[in-house]
């Protein structure tokens, strides 16, 4: 029987949650016994090739490309997990949510204390995805089945959750593994 597939992605995140996936250390060998990776930065597969049992989403939705990828994950994965504070809350990128978009762009490209931009241009290549009006938590865009809190979530929490889901057991994390930081 073919192994179940999992996919991962980092939207508006810092890849810290992916680092935490790798932090399961030698158990990664057990994991590859359990699953095959499909679309994921870990194996650098860019598009989905198969339907996946589990999709792990790091980061929230800051631009239209994030939304496209997230919806793609929803369509290809049986179970979606929001991994970490950025996927769940918007995280650090969501700090811009209380500031008008134009002000954010001006600060980032024109007025910020460390900006060197003599041409005074705000990048606007059609290839650059449009920013959303605010950073959205993933569960406000698609339905999310599980949430793993933390910045990043503890490697043990990721491991226990994945193993439980892949072996059809209930996800029941101990107190020590539920942390928001």
């Amino acid at each position: 029987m073919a192994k179940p597939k999992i996919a991962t992605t980092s939207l508006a995140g810092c890849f810290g949650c992916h680092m935490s996936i790798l932090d399961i250390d030698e158990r990664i060998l057990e994991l590859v016994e359990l699953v095959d990776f499909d679309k994921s930065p870990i194996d650098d597969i860019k598009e989905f090739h198969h339907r996946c049992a589990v999709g792990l989403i790091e980061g929230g939705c800051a631009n239209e490309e994030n939304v496209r990828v997230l919806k793609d994950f929803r369509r290809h994965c049986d179970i979606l997990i929001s991994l970490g504070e950025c996927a769940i809350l918007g995280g650090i990128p969501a700090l811009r949510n209380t500031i008008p978009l134009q002000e954010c762009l001006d600060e980032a490209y024109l007025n910020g204390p460390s900006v060197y931009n003599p041409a005074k241009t705000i990048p606007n290549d059609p290839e650059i995805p449009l920013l959303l009006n605010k950073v959205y938590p993933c569960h406000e865009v698609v339905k999310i089945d599980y949430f793993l809190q933390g910045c990043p979530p503890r490697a043990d929490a990721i491991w226990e959750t994945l193993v439980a889901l892949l072996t059809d057991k209930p996800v029941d994390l101990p107190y020590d593994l539920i942390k928001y930081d």
Partner: protein
Amino acid sequence: MPMSQTIDFIIDGVEVSARPGQTILQAADEAGIYIPRLCAHKDLVPHGSCRICTVLVNGRPQSACTQPVAPGIVVQNDIEKLNNVRRNILDMLFVEGNHYCMFCEKSGNCELQALAYRFGIMAPKFPYQFPARDVDASHPDIYIDRNRCILCARCIRASRDLDGKHVFEFVGRGPEKRVAVNAEARLADTDVDVTDKALSICPVGALMRKRQGYADPIGRRRYDHQPIGSDIEAKRSATG
């Protein structure tokens, strides 16, 4: 009042003896039964605003922190109906403000966060409101981060009743309500002092001393291993 006078009643099926004048919350604490709470604090007069300590007294909802004990009452506390309400209230507080636990100095020692841990909340069921709130860092040693304020009035009560000042007070109404300071605008222009009890009594990271963040490493913070309320519950397991 004679010492022998007691008021007997029941919480969650357990018979509890209280002294006259005690609230249900105080009596429960002494009996080793934890009723979740946020605005209540043992050194402060009850405020009854967060509503997390809502219990059913003979079937009627009451805040345990304000409701006096009475003979023969039957109090329900740890029941799913109320725990669902409590989760909803915690969710409301999380989405009402901007609670970025990942960089908050209070994380690990924060009572709001600890309650959410205790109730196993993985994500609020309500949409984040992302309100625009301000930070007052005018004072050399103290700052107010209103993003994290949950309007529990602990600082207001502590400043007034414990510090003998009146540094804080609510202004505005409804969703616009916020904690203001006794000055034109800035905390620096008040008589607040870094030793004021009003600061350390904040349950969240809204009122903080500067240059003291992250003093406790992860793993050694107050709620890293033991859920909030464990100290109270330990009394009961010790005696029972």
